[in-house]
């Protein structure tokens, strides 16, 4: 694809020759003429003409329908490590390489955790839902904690809508554990990086044996009771050791889950991996669209996210709610703003029921502003990017990781091509 820019308008020519443009502030997509495209050629002398006038007129428009999503400082999302040990040994693990974050803890103290959860629930305004995700380590190594927490929360906040998410490696989905997840009407995210010949290499068990057969058995158990869960998703992580997204997609397609996600590893900085990822996502989008049009494409989380933002003209001013609406609690009840900062004393922003308000104050400005994204055409679909990925590359969470930006802009541009295809025939 080829891109051209006129102020806040990005124009794009797809491999098939389709011309379209995107208004960065208004989140509008338009088909454009050849004349308009020519007028946007870098270095071209712009002559007064109808096409240029239309482009200029569109650029200065401000769409009053566009909504912003400035986040208030109410913690509505918590991620909790009920354990910091794992039965797998994934070769890209961002949790200290072995699920422990360098601080192995088999079980969180519920005596400390339950009051900590109540502390956050009590601070919440009425009618606002609360969201708890269980990460780890492998959370199902201490599945009883999930059940006890859900029971406790229902007791202390009876009228509150609480959504639960469990991110699991899928190897411990016993009947008992599936019952626990179903009782919570959980959203379940299963980590699986592809077919057995790939997944078993990148996500082996601690003793080096295959994990895929266990995951598949667990997935089938969940899918047999699908209506009892809020959402079931398969999530793959890809880096320079495994960039086989197409093969993963083919394998995932055997399971009737609600969605798939193809994440680029937060700790991968190899530029070649970024190029391969973009190539693979292009093939993936084509395969999904050929298979089932918009529906199949939007089953892939990255595309769904941008389709929603474009359809609802909803700006994203923050890539995530870190420190604003989201906090991370580790298995020692220490508080951080990001799951990947666990056990980094510099990043700790609280303990138990005490929050370091001064430390949190530094997180309250929109990421677009602190990360200086004002000149990026994809800014209102990106929200300033992942602070952890930025820090991993640049040493500073507010100095951008250029590869992250490149991948995001590519994903947005790819989505725009399919969005135009879907909405031009609507």
């Amino acid at each position, binding site marked *: 694809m080829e891109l051209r820019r006129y102020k806040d308008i990005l124009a794009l020519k797809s491999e098939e020759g389709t011309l379209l443009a995107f208004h960065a502030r208004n989140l509008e997509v338009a088909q454009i003429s050849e004349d308009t495209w020519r007028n946007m050629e870098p270095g071209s002398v712009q002559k007064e003409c109808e096409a240029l006038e239309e482009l200029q007129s569109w650029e200065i428009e401000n769409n009053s329908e566009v909504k912003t999503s400035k986040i208030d400082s109410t913690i509505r999302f918590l991620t909790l490590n009920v354990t910091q040990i794992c039965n797998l040994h994934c070769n890209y693990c961002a949790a200290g390489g072995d699920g422990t974050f360098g601080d192995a803890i088999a079980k969180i103290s519920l005596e400390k955790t339950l009051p900590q959860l109540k502390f956050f629930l009590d601070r919440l305004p009425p009618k606002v839902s609360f969201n708890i995700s269980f990460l780890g380590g492998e959370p199902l190594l201490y599945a009883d904690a999930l059940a006890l927490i859900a029971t406790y929360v229902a007791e202390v906040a009876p009228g509150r809508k609480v959504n639960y998410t469990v991110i699991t490696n899928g190897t411990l989905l016993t009947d008992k554990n599936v019952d626990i997840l179903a009782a919570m009407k959980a959203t379940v995210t299963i980590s699986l990086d592809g077919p057995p010949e790939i997944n078993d290499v990148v996500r082996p068990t601690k003793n080096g044996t295959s994990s895929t057969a266990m995951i598949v058995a667990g997935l089938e158990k969940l899918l047999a009771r699908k209506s009892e869960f809020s959402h079931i998703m398969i999530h793959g992580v890809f880096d320079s050791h495994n960039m086989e997204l197409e093969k993963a997609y083919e394998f995932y397609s055997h399971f009737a889950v609600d969605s798939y996600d193809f994440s680029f590893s937060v700790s991968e900085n190899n530029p070649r991996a970024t190029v391969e990822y973009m190539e693979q996502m292009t093939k993936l989008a084509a395969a999904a669209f050929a298979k089932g049009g918009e529906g199949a494409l939007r089953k892939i989380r990255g595309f769904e996210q941008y389709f*929603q933002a474009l359809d609802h003209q909803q700006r994203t001013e923050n890539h*995530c*709610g870190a420190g604003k609406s989201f906090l991370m609690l580790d298995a020692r009840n220490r508080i951080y703003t990001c799951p990947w900062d666990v056990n980094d004393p510099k990043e700790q922003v609280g303990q138990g029921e005490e929050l370091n308000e001064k430390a949190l104050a530094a997180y309250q400005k929109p990421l677009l502003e602190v990360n200086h994204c004002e000149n990026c055409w994809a800014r209102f679909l990106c929200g300033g990017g992942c602070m952890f990925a930025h820090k991993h590359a640049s040493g500073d969470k507010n100095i951008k990781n250029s590869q992250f930006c490149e991948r995001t802009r590519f994903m947005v541009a790819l989505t725009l091509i399919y969005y135009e295809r879907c909405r031009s025939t609507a």
Partner: protein
Amino acid sequence: MKFLTLIKEKIMEKVDKKHVKKLKPKTTQTANFGHGNGSNPCPPVGGDLITEN
């Protein structure tokens, strides 16, 4: 009169949108904004969570 207005609008639409034809968003699906609205995208929570604010 109403018919004439409609015709005029249609003609104007064609004139106005000769070079830039905006596509109409489709909003029949429920808005389900995820991480941009404050949750945590990493690791992803499937079917991300609706926020009421």
